[in-house]
């Protein structure tokens, strides 16, 4: 069933792979002893994570007073980091769900790793609201369970509670979607393994055999889960933006927040996917599956979402001026030229100005430029959340309570610690699971492999036309 491919389509799998080679290339990194680079990076991540855990323990033991939050600035690095991480998670769902609905074949090269990244990022994000509560042992109070205090229920009208539901649903659905995709690939690993390894992967593969009916149901399930995950991912950052937009703080109380936050989330998420994939493809030798074409596609998404975010920044400024509302005008004057001017400048430079170089094809296809841009954007999007949160709170309605905020070593330690957690989990993932979705890549080989694309596509088509009469004879013979 070789599909007819347009000769102008760029291949998504290079190196004239056979099905067996695809298995070999993608599974073999999990079968090798880890290399020096992996071990060094893993040890460093574990070290950073340990320091983060120490800082979390310190916070819980000593109390939130170890942070530099005060009565004016009640949200600082904690909520900034929370929004930053949850935003990063969004790219994984966009790639695996929205691009599945849009039938974008290039997603197959990166969806597995991007979804893994989503799950790990949401885990890092979820940590911040929990420790920010101060008394983490009472965290169960956020769930509506029958209790002896009435029962006294949670406030279902509060966006903070919507966040609890949105993020826990998002985490659960992402995990189910990811694991269901992994099951057939774990079966592939299982059928190559021996001994203890085989027993472990037999358990992980859930008894998958590749029956036609199972594949049919698996595809039906993937499609519906994608259809559910698409509005879900949009709802998650919409609800995160409601945490701000439903308040009465100038600079937060704006209707533009939901689309602006969602675009920003996808923007930062793609940047993180690129940072990870550029390193992963190099270290695991996956250049044939994550090609320059994939990188260019992701850079196009970055250019689009970055420009949406830039437009949102400018719209905010315009509306502040046009509204004639002095508090709103002051909030934006303060963001750009107030005490935290440097973070506004960082945000504008990294998020709005620098991604514009991706209008040039040469830049979109440069690994070096892409890697640096992905780091810039991660920094810029962190600044954006800091600008929204700390800058706005530092100058509120009462000049007598104006304040300034710098994080303590504990807050910095926790943030760096979540980086450690993220990389520890990601590095373990690349060791135990196929980083590229094997079955999905095989299913696009005939339409996106380089031996079937470009000039070969035409030959292939002609060959198929010539073969047609032969097949008819064949059927007549029986």
């Amino acid at each position, binding site marked *: 069933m070789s599909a007819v491919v347009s000769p102008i389509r760029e291949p998504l799998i290079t190196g004239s792979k*056979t099905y067996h080679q695809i298995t070999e290339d993608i599974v073999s990194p999990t079968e090798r002893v880890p290399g020096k680079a992996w071990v060094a990076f893993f040890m460093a991540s574990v070290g950073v994570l340990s320091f983060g855990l120490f800082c979390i323990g310190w916070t819980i033991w000593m109390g939130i007073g170890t942070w530099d939050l005060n009565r004016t600035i009640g949200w600082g690095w904690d909520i900034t980091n929370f929004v930053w991480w949850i935003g990063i998670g969004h790219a994984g769902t966009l790639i695996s769900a929205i691009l599945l609905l849009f039938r974008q074949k290039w997603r197959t090269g990166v969806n597995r790793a991007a979804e893994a990244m989503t799950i790990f990022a949401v885990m890092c994000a979820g940590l911040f609201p929990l420790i920010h509560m101060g008394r983490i042992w009472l965290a169960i109070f956020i769930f509506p369970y029958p209790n002896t205090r009435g029962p006294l229920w949670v406030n279902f009208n509060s966006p903070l509670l919507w966040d609890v539901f949105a993020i826990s649903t998002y985490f659960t659905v992402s995990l189910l979607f990811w694991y269901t995709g992994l099951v057939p690939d774990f079966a592939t690993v299982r*059928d190559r393994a021996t001994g203890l390894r085989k027993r472990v992967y037999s358990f992980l593969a859930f008894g998958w055999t590749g029956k036609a009916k199972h594949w049919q149901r698996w595809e039906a399930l993937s499609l519906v889960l994608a259809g559910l995950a698409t509005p879900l991912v949009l709802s998650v950052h919409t609800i995160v933006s409601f945490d701000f937009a439903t308040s009465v703080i100038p600079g937060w109380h704006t209707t533009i927040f939901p689309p602006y936050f969602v675009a920003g989330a996808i923007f930062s998420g793609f940047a993180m996917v690129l940072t990870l994939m550029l390193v992963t493809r190099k270290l695991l030798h996956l250049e044939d599956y994550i090609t320059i074409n994939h990188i260019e596609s992701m850079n196009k998404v970055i250019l689009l979402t970055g420009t949406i975010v830039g437009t949102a920044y400018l719209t905010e400024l315009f509306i502040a001026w046009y509204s004639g509302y002095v508090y709103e005008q002051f909030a934006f004057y303060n963001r750009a030229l107030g005490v935290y001017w440097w973070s506004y400048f960082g945000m504008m430079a990294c998020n709005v100005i620098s991604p514009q170089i991706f209008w040039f094809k040469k830049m979109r296809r440069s690994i070096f430029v892409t890697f640096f841009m992905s780091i810039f954007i991660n920094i810029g999007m962190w600044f954006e959340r800091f600008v929204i949160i700390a800058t706005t709170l530092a100058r509120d309605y009462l000049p007598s309570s104006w304040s300034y905020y710098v994080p303590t070593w504990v807050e910095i330690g926790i943030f760096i610690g979540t980086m450690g957690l993220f990389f520890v989990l990601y590095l373990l993932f690349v060791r135990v699971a196929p980083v590229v979705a094997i079955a999905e890549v095989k299913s696009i080989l005939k339409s996106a492999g380089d031996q079937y694309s470009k000039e070969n596509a035409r030959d292939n088509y002609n060959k198929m036309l010539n073969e047609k009469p032969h097949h008819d004879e064949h059927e007549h013979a029986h």
Partner: protein
Amino acid sequence: MKEYQEVLYGLYDDETDLMDAVKVANADHLDIMDVYSPFPVHGLDPLLGLSESRLHIAGFVYGALGTLTAFLFMTWVFTRDWPIIFGGKPYFSAPAFIPISFELTVLFASIGMVVTFYTVCGLGPGVNNPVLDDRITDDKFCIAFETNGYSNEEISKLKGFFSTTGASEVNTKTI
């Protein structure tokens, strides 16, 4: 379910060969037990007479259950069990119930469908289904016939089918 199954299976190197072979088997009225492949082969389901999966209907039911659970529960809490005025809004403030109702719709539909999927497929943690050939999850496409109580003549007819349709290997296995 029988105690054991004797299976005669052929392996093909390409999904095109597999599809052609299934067409031949249909024309010859051979009773295929199952077809196995390393990835979903599109166009195979109608040839095997597989009806469309009804998983999405189950998903809709679970989703509707989630919507109702969330919406009715919040309504009960805020109008009957413990009415509280928030920001001067009515007790029954439906728009504020939408986000959580939506999230629970997605949550119920996803968990329900995934559980249903593994249940109806007979898959799950600790399940060890017999594997006909280790290369089926790699690069081989397999057609399997159940041959319990088949005469030699019938078996050689199946073997003939495999050789004319270009199977690269033919094996038997008792599972």
